[in-house]
């Protein structure tokens, strides 16, 4: 198809660069600089979509992001579809492939259009009314139906292959919108030396100046003045210019989020470029210069393709060289549509008539149209349109003084351009939590007082006419700069010729002479809400606009009602017979226009979603085929299966190896805190339940830490390295919490103590060597430490060297076997590990993972904080009253241990559980009951906390927290399983080496 509707010259397109693209599989040609909407219009295409509810054919209505109809899906490759892109915002590139939405099988023949014939059924609140009864239908019939009908466009099916960037920025003045007001504000602020960011959602900065063919600024054509202003800004290195960047979210403390579309307009984007960039801007001052949005007229059949906003017709003509039609009817209540008529006429378009609602249109714009020889009809209203997939004619009517309408006949046309006046775009002001105020003179809601450091400039706060808008913009920029720098300069405001303000405007449904029961005048095009729907909602008792919105869905489209709200409000206000301010206005929320999930996620996805922490020995475990588990942000080796081994096999083998020979284990992830200072022992004595004052240098002690409520929060082994220096270990997951807890106490409760904390978690790599052969394995590598039990007994620490590397060598055990934990500087961890492993392997030892560690400690009845404990467990509950210093004056949580609910009988206590059938391995978390089949609502006695197969016992075993558990030794209780309750015997939680002889050997 040729570009029949392209002007012969003019516009900002590059006619020497043709661009081929497809729409619904059909090839078209446009020019570089075209949007999808302008290129389609140049090809004579108005029909671009089907409406959401009735599947009515719809055409391009606007030239901006508020477009309700021309929503398309674009996929660069299969599975990567981006739905609901607004065609006026889509820049065409060679090979662009766009698809219309909400139609089947094709745009011109859509079976869903049967909904339109059934429209009397689909009234406001249809869903609420229809899908109520019978109740049993909800899950099987109604919900699937609604889900399949819901949503517009096709979601992508594959993970997003694009990359998204993030950028934090700060500025003195952020200007949102680069039309005349925004350009002026940015210029004034920049001249004052302020750091300025100027963003605009369009591909080119300049806003309305880009399609203003008649005004002059400073003696230059408006568009040239804009180009000069933009050039001056771009040469200022304190100014950042961001086209294709939507200011979509105004948040607290002048934090504004911008979405920059970096590559969507490119045919072959460099893969090194991100698709979009999220700008997180902290602005000292913000200037909102988002302009005004032209309102549709609400007349019957106003949704026919070919019906378009008057200013959009002017934009497509002047900026893109695309004509909305060849014979155009203009329907208006406002002077600005006359500019469109004059420009169209000058381009050779046949302007059939300007139908003006007002009885006596007058003024400079009207005069210009009149002198161009355009027919003007006052008191004239459009009462309908004809045409199937595109408007063919407009019905006109004369408004009589009494308000009634008589038919004036039909006017043939292939496009109908309308203007109901202008609605200031207060979305971002509303997002900033400002309250809009109704302005009777302007007939509009305008920004009220500023809640944050922002100001609106230009038509977004009701200032119209190019001269006034520029003055307003300069003043806003100057004031914003003045608020942040003392050096603000008073800018010189250029003089404007032309660009006069246009008077007029209307709100709500227009009068007509048609059968009101049979015609529909649309208010919200995207959601198919008509004037009748709004009236019905009011009749059914919805009187607040917030309720009307949710009942009818008016204003819930991708433009949040920027196009439709005021007309809906007016219809509701008239039906309610209440003034508009009493009906209210819905709140505008972030985001201003839809934002991709990728832009919100930026780089936080996949491997980079969270830091993944790995130990110096991680690669070794990978080479050995370890399976890993996540413990907080750490990857920990879980078990080391040999070829053909199941997890069960591997863990059983690892357990047996540690018990019989020796195992090597990576304990690097344990939290470590160095506690140093003259009062270090006193401090530890206060934070642990155990006594620490008399712990000798070179000795270790296991300690329990409680919170203020007396509940166990963490545990670990503490070593006294020197008189005033302790090496404290915490659980892997608890490290940051414990450090913050201790620091909190030091700073707020005991600032008098001379003791300080330093995290050393990552200073050390920790190699645990456990098992009867542990000493033999490390002895050849250790220098300067006597490893004999006499010299270095269980629970002691020595400093020396291993493999020539300085070490803090702990003799301790979390397995019940004799063992060591070798601390070496992190960067030396791998080489020491390799040397130790050599010796371990030589004696038939094995590496073991966290699962084996868990089994071995459970055999010993050692608790794991967070597994046996859940934040409501005190030391006595887990049989660790021995760890509570009875003679201590105080420690954190001590007083709570005497609370009545803590000393009362019946608390859950840690016990061992053996199933009668030794092969049954209980589920962790399973309920423990007194009877096999207790009556409904019988409370459980407790629950299983740990459950494993024990190779040492040759059978299953479990730990459980059971009410009065220590009084139930030998009792038979029952534990629920998927196959029914099983009988268990309650036993001591220490299953292995109860005397503890092995670990001290």
């Amino acid at each position: 198809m040729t570009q029949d509707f392209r002007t012969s010259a003019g516009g900002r397109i590059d006619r020497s660069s043709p661009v081929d693209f497809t729409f619904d599989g059909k090839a078209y040609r446009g020019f570089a600089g075209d949007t999808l909407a302008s290129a389609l219009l140049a090809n004579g295409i108005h029909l671009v979509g089907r409406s959401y509810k009735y599947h009515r054919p719809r055409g391009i209505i606007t030239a901006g992001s508020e477009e309700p109809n021309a929503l398309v899906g674009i996929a660069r490759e299969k599975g990567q579809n981006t739905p609901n892109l607004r065609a006026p915002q889509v820049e065409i590139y060679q090979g662009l492939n766009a698809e219309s939405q909400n139609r089947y099988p094709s745009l011109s023949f859509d079976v869903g259009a049967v909904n339109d014939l059934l429209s009397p059924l689909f009234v406001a609140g249809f869903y609420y009314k229809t899908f109520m009864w019978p109740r049993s239908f909800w899950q099987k019939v109604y919900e699937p139906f609604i889900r399949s009908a819901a949503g517009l466009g096709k979601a992508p099916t594959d993970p997003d292959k694009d990359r998204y960037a993030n950028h934090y920025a700060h500025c003195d003045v952020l200007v949102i919108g680069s039309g005349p007001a925004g350009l002026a504000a940015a210029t004034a602020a920049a001249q004052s030396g302020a750091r300025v960011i100027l963003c605009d959602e369009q591909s080119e900065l300049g806003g309305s100046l880009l399609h203003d063919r008649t005004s002059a600024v400073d003696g230059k054509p408006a568009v040239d003045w804009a180009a000069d202003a933009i050039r001056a800004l771009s040469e200022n290195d304190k100014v950042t210019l961001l086209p294709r960047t939507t200011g979509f979210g105004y948040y607290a403390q002048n934090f504004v989020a911008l979405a920059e579309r970096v590559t969507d307009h490119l045919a072959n984007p460099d893969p090194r470029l991100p698709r979009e960039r999220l700008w997180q801007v902290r602005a000292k001052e913000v200037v909102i210069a988002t302009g005004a949005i032209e309102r549709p007229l609400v007349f019957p059949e106003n949704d026919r393709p070919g019906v378009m906003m008057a200013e959009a017709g002017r934009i497509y003509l002047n900026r893109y060289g695309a004509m909305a039609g060849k014979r155009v009817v203009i329907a208006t209540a406002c002077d600005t549509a006359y500019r469109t008529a004059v420009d169209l006429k000058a381009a050779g378009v046949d302007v059939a008539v300007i139908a003006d609602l007002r009885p006596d249109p007058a003024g400079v714009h009207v005069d210009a149209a009149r002198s161009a020889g355009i027919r003007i009809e006052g008191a004239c209203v459009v009462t309908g349109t004809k045409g199937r997939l595109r408007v063919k004619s407009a019905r006109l009517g004369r408004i009589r003084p009494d308000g009634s309408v008589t038919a004036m006949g039909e006017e043939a046309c292939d496009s109908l351009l309308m203007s109901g006046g202008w609605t200031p775009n207060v979305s971002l002001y509303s997002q900033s939590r400002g309250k809009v105020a109704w302005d009777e003179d302007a007939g509009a809601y305008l920004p009220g007082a500023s809640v944050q450091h922002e100001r609106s400039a230009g038509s977004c706060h009701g200032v119209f006419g190019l001269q006034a808008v520029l003055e307003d913009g300069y003043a806003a920029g100057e004031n914003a700069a003045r608020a942040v720098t003392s050096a603000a300069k008073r800018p010189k405001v250029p003089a404007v010729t032309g660009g006069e303000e246009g008077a007029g405007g209307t709100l709500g449904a227009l009068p007509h002479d048609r059968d009101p029961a049979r015609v529909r005048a649309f208010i919200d095009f995207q959601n198919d809400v008509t004037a009748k729907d709004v009236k019905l909602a009011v009749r059914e008792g919805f009187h607040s606009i917030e309720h009307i919105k949710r009942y009818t869905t008016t204003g819930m489209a991708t433009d949040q009602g920027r196009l439709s709200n005021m007309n809906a409000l007016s219809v509701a206000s008239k039906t309610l017979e209440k003034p508009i301010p009493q009906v209210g206005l819905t709140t505008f929320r972030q985001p201003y226009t839809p934002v991709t999930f990728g832009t919100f996620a930026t780089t936080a996805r996949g491997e980079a979603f969270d830091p993944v922490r790995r130990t110096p020995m991680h690669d070794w475990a990978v080479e050995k085929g370890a399976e890993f588990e996540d413990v907080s942000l750490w990857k920990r080796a879980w078990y080391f299966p040999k070829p053909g081994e199941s997890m069960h096999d591997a863990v059983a083998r690892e357990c047996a190896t540690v018990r019989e020979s020796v195992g090597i284990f990576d304990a690097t992830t344990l939290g470590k805190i160095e506690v140093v200072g003259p009062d270090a022992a006193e401090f530890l004595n206060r934070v642990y339940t155990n006594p620490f004052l008399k712990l000798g240098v070179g000795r270790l002690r296991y300690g329990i830490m409680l919170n203020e409520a007396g509940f166990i929060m963490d545990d670990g082994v503490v070593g006294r390295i020197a008189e005033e220096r302790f090496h404290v270990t915490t659980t892997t997951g608890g490290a940051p919490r414990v450090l913050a807890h201790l620091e909190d106490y030091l700073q707020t409760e005991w600032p008098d103590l001379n003791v300080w904390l330093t995290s050393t978690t990552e200073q050390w790599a920790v190699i645990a060597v456990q098992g009867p052969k542990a000493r033999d394995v490390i002895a050849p590598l250790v220098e300067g430490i006597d490893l004999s039990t006499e010299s270095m007994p269980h629970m002691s620490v020595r400093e020396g060297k291993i493999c020539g590397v300085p070490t803090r060598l702990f003799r301790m055990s979390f397995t019940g076997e004799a063992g060591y934990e070798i601390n070496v500087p992190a960067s030396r961890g791998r080489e020491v590990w390799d040397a130790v492993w050599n010796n371990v392997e030589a004696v038939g030892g094995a590496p073991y993972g966290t699962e084996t560690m868990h089994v071995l400690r459970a055999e010993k009845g050692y608790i794991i904080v967070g597994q046996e404990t859940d934040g409501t467990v005190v030391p006595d509950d887990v049989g660790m009253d021995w760890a509570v210093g009875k003679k201590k004056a105080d420690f954190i949580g001590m007083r709570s241990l005497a609370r009545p609910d803590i000393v009362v009988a019946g608390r859950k206590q840690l016990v061992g559980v053996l199933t009668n059938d030794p092969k049954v391995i209980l589920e962790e978390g399973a309920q423990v009951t007194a009877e096999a089949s207790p009556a409904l609502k019988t409370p459980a006695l407790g629950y299983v906390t740990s459950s494993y197969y024990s190779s040492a016992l040759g059978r299953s075993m479990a730990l459980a927290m059971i009410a009065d558990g220590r009084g139930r030794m030998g009792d038979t209780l029952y534990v629920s399983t998927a196959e029914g309750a099983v009988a268990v015997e309650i036993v001591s939680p220490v299953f292995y080496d109860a005397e503890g002889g092995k670990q001290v050997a």
Partner: protein
Amino acid sequence: MPEKSVYSANAHLSPIVVTSNVRVEEAAPLVRLSLRGGEAAASHAGASIGAPLPLEPLTSTMADKAAAFWLGPDEWQIAIQEGDATAVFERVETAMADTPHSLVDVSERNRALIISGPKAAWLLNSQIFLDFDEAVFPVGMVTRTLFGKADIMLWRQSEDIFVLEAWRSFMPYVIELLQEASRELEAA
């Protein structure tokens, strides 16, 4: 600022990012000491390393082979270009012998990156929310902050050179995100 910094690129490793306007390199190993205590301890420590410890919040001091960073009202990090951590530790510890303090060797806890070039601040702003305008974040300023979800220490060594330290297990995350953000700098 002395020309020579205590931080120098680790010559054994290839650079992490190289573009025409920004480089990211891993710093050579250093001795790092965490000092906590009062101003008296700081004064003795400063004398022993030849660089007075900064008392102004968020500032740093630099000597030929040492630098000291203010990290809190009672906390400094000292970086020294020397091979033997134990020897340095003993020297500084001895200098403060009679003053309550905590000196801890954290040489191995952190890794450091040197980010340099006209786009260095831009690159860091991909994950750091601070304002790097020189009036706000002048040369010599040091702070603990977040890089994405990782805690870091950041020091502006000169207008276009930053040093970023993070605990070693967080460094792969930091490096991955710096590389990711720098990719577009190589685009046409």
